[in-house]
Every structure is written in structure tokens, then in C-alpha cells.
């Protein structure tokens, strides 16, 4: 029998306990450090970036890493380090927006499907299945292409593709939670179905949603970068990591630094999210939290 998750007395204490447990988990710490670093970079890029990411300086084209340009320069003479730093801001923003949009919408859809069951469940989940049957990148590409290439559209496309993940997961949780007696108690007290979904069901799915959100954030950054790479996402001169790799590809043989640094940052960021997500899953598992 599933027992409901036990929080430790209010949000603040729950947070404190989570942090305490996380701090003992080396991989969680690693993931948190990576993401913290990226977030810091994103937030302070305006202040700390040595150069403006957009200003062209044709005299400094394609300089190797060293001296004033730690990561070298691109074909327009722009400092790659500064561009990478600003790129962090873009990527993290993409991640957060996708997760917010897909997470909220997907969770509600999943909760409704799981709670009502029957035909509604069928209809919703079969729709989700259809979306899931496309490889996420391919579907995102199709959507982004249809909407027109821009970063905003890329975000929407990726969010759409991620909705079924949340829906499926929350539906599973809803199926278990709705059998618990406190849901029956709510009905006996006269609560309407949607009240129960929002006040009882969804709050009890929060832990799993957080874990999934962390993992999806990594994945969406990757997909958005891929979209930008093929020209469907961020447009030049936006310093998005994927877009930078797209251009840097041409120069890969002689100017390795151009594509390598943005690529490295994508890699590290996504790894960071995945590690943190996995650790969070272990930490938020109700059986371990006791």
C-alpha cells in the first residue's frame, strides 16, 4: 500500500532537511555545485563578462585562447568567454521556462487523467502517447519550423514536447494517491473533484515533479541547443551555445576553441542537472526520508 509522503513540518523545515540530506550525498553536491556555478555565471554575466558579447571587432578575429581572451575569439572578433557566459543566461532561462510551462500544464493534465480515469484518462493519455511516440528532437524541430525560427518559438516547441513526461508521471502518482483515505474523506466532506485535485492530489505529487523537473531542465537545454544548432532556435547574433556550435563547426579543424567551449558547457550543465536530479530522487523518496 502506498503511504503518502511525509514532510517534516512545514516547507521551511522540509527544505532544511532536504538540504541536510543532500549535503551528505557527494553526487548531489557535485550536481548542485555545477548548476550553482552556471546559475552564478548567468546572473553575473552582465557584470563579470570581460567583453560585450555582441560588439564586432574584426581586428581580433579567431584568436586562440590566451591572454585577454581566455576562450579565444570567434569569426567576428567577439570574445568567446563572454559569449559563453551570456549563453548560460539564455540556456538556463530556456530550461526554467520549459519546465515551468510543461511542468504546470503537464501536471494538471496528468492529475486530471489519473483522478477521473475512464474515458477522460484514455483520451488524455492516448494524446500524450502520440506526442511521446515522436523523438523529442524531431517533433520539436517540426514545431519550431512551423512556427518560425526564434528562441521563443523554440522554447514553446520544447515545452510542448516535454508535457507528456510530466503528464505521465503525475498520472501515475495520482492513481496511487486517489486511493488514499484522505481523498475519500475530502469527498465525504463535500469537496468537489477539482478542489481535491488542486488541494490534495497535486501537492502530494510535488516531490516527484521536482525530480522530473530537474532532469527535464537538462534535457530541454540540450534540445533547445540542438534547435539553435540547426538554425531553428536562437538567431545570430544571440550568443546561445547551440548556435555557437553551429557556426563553430566550420572552424573546428583549425580553431578548435570556437565549438569546443560552448559544447563543453552544454555537456557539463546537462550532466549537472542529471546528477542533481538523480540525487534528488533518492533524497525525496519517502521511504528514505523517514
Amino acid at each position, binding site marked *: 500500500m502506498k503511504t503518502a509522503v511525509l514532510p517534516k513540518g512545514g516547507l521551511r523545515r522540509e527544505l532544511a*532537511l532536504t538540504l*541536510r*540530506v543532500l549535503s551528505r550525498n557527494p553526487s548531489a553536491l557535485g550536481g548542485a555545485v555545477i548548476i550553482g556555478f552556471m546559475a552564478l555565471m548567468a546572473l553575473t554575466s552582465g557584470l563579470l563578462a570581460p567583453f560585450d558579447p555582441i560588439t564586432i571587432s574584426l581586428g581580433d578575429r579567431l584568436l586562440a585562447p590566451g591572454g585577454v581572451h581566455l576562450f579565444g575569439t570567434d569569426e567576428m572578433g567577439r570574445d568567446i568567454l563572454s559569449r559563453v557566459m551570456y549563453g548560460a543566461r539564455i540556456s538556463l532561462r530556456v530550461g526554467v521556462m520549459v519546465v515551468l510551462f510543461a511542468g504546470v500544464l503537464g501536471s494538471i493534465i496528468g492529475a486530471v487523467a489519473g483522478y477521473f480515469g475512464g474515458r477522460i484518462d484514455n483520451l488524455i493519455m492516448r494524446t500524450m502517447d502520440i506526442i511521446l511516440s515522436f523523438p523529442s528532437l524531431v517533433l520539436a524541430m517540426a514545431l519550431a519550423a512551423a512556427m518560425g525560427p526564434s528562441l521563443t518559438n523554440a522554447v514553446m516547441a520544447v515545452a510542448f514536447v516535454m508535457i507528456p513526461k510530466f503528464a505521465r508521471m503525475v498520472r501515475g502518482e495520482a492513481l496511487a494517491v486517489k486511493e488514499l483515505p484522505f481523498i475519500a474523506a475530502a469527498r465525504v466532506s463535500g469537496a468537489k473533484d477539482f478542489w481535491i485535485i488542486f488541494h490534495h492530489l497535486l501537492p502530494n505529487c510535488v516531490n516527484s515533479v521536482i525530480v522530473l523537473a530537474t532532469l527535464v531542465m537538462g534535457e530541454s537545454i540540450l534540445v533547445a541547443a540542438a534547435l539553435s544548432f540547426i538554425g531553428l532556435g536562437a538567431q545570430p547574433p544571440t550568443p546561445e551555445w547551440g548556435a555557437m556550435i553551429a557556426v563553430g563547426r566550420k572552424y573546428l579543424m583549425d580553431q578548435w576553441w570556437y565549438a569546443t567551449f560552448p559544447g563543453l558547457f552544454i555537456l557539463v550543465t546537462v550532466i549537472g542537472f542529471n546528477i542533481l536530479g538523480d540525487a534528488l530522487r533518492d533524497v525525496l523518496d519517502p521511504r528514505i*526520508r*523517514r
Partner: protein
Amino acid sequence: MAGLTQDLLRIEDLSAEFRTYQGVAKVLNQVSLSLRPGEILGLVGESGCGKSVTARSILRLIPEPPFKITGGRILFRGRDVLKLPSGELRRLRGNSISMIFQEPMSSLNPVFTVGNQMMEVVNLHQRVGRTRAREICLEMLHQVRLPDADRILGKYPHELSGGMRQRVMIAMELSCRPDLLIADEPTTALDVTIQGQILTILAELTRRKGVSVLFITHDMSVIAQLCDRVAVMYAGMVVEIAGVRDLFAAPLHPYTRGLISSITGLEEETDHLEHIPGVVPSLIDPPGGCRFHPRCDQELDPCPRLAPRLIPVEPGHYLACHLYPG
């Protein structure tokens, strides 16, 4: 305690703790008890008293990182189980010491048929051909009064009811003629009519085969029906040990008295039930001295400071309480 050489199982001052995120829970505090050959000892207490932990410690079934035995000995036939090398411990399990649990599904593999699993157990202990092994299995099922034994061998565990699964477990665990059977709340999850059958089978088979039983339960009525002697636990300590008749006729420890009057009250036409006020204490921060003192209506001066030791107050009757200094 008397009869050192006679005890089959002897737990001496067993203490253990459990690491949790909220701190260290001192789940066992100097637990001592003994079991003689051929007797049924009941280990009774409410949730959190440590009875299950004690039982599982005998076979070292609790994973040691969060759990840690901090002191004491568990002597089985004179040898300290806690010091046995893992190979010998494994030989003990299922051979000399068997165990049945509350939920038999956890011991039966859902992807193999019952017959399959029973024959596997038989073959572990005796090398016999398939036909003979099947015969032995049928005989085992017959002993636990399962009708249609032939059909049952072909079924999967989830196709059987809880009562039937428990009987299969009993048959399997007794098939190798262990010296000691540990039964951890085997009937708690069963209906009362099925429980009646299981208890009868258990009593009959263990007597017939000379198996000693350590029977763990929270149900005093079952204790009254089945056991020869009883050990009562509270919050990780043993508070009283006595023969079953003595215990019910004249319980000495205030907790035992409270426990017994809570249920006997139901048998009579009383208006208001006796109850023990308060709640079971946290084991992370247990009360000092005697762990029961905050709820005890006969608290004395030494109770909050000094934990009472388990001492014999009458022949065969042991008590851990300051009310009865030895």
C-alpha cells in the same frame, strides 16, 4: 537466569541502535530472554517496542549500516550468533533456525510456482529424486491441513489466499526440522477464523516435531492461547517475563497490567475501558531511567533516574521494575 546449559536460545543484554536522519534511535536496551527446548515463548509488545528487531537480530537479518548492535550476546546452543562467520550463520538459517513473517509474500517468489519453491527447499536439505521430493511436498501440505495439495503445488503464490500462503510457509520452514522457529506476527494480517486454523496447526506441528517457537505478536489473546511463557517488551526493553498463567493471573509490571486490563475490559460489560494514558516515547530521545515512567501511575523516586534491571522476583518470573526490588 537459571538453566544455563538447558537454554536453546539465550539473549543477554542485547542493545542496538538505528541511525536515522533525525538522530540515533536506541531501539533495544539490554534485552534479555531465554527459550528452553520444546517451549513456545511469546514476545509481546506494542508498536515500536523492539520485538521484531529482537527477532530479526537473531538471524542478523537487519542490514548493519543503519542498524548497529551495540552490546550483548545472542547464544544459540551456547554459541554467540553475533560472532559467527557468515558461512556458519548461513548454515544456521533455514536449518536450525527458521523464520516465518507476517506477510508471506515477502518470502515466496511470485514468479515460481509453490511446488517449485517447496521442492527447492526439500532438495536443499535432502538429495532425493523428483518423485520423492514431490511426495514429501504433498506430505508437508497435508500436515498443514491444506486440502487439494496436488493443485496447490501448481499454483503461483498470488493465486493463493493469505492463510494458504502462510500455511505453505509454515510447511516449508518446518520441513527441515529446525530447532527453533521464529514466527514474526504470522497471523496479524489474517482473518480471525483463518488465524484460528494457523495457530492450531502451529501448536500441533511444533509440539509434534519438538520445535521450539519464539512467537512475536502484539495480541495478548493469541499469547494466552498459544504460549507457555511470555516476555513483555516496552520501548526497547523487556519489562516482564513469566509463565503465561502467572502473567495473566498476577501481572506485576504496571505496563503489563495496563495492557491486560485494556483487553480484558472488552470481555466484560464494563462501561469505560481501562487505558494507559500517554503515548509510546520516541526512541531517539527516550525518557531517562525506566522508559515507562512518564506513563506509570505508580512512579517512584528512582524511576526517572535509574533503569531497573530484569531480576527474578519469583521462580520463573522476571521483572524490571523498581516497585519490586529483588
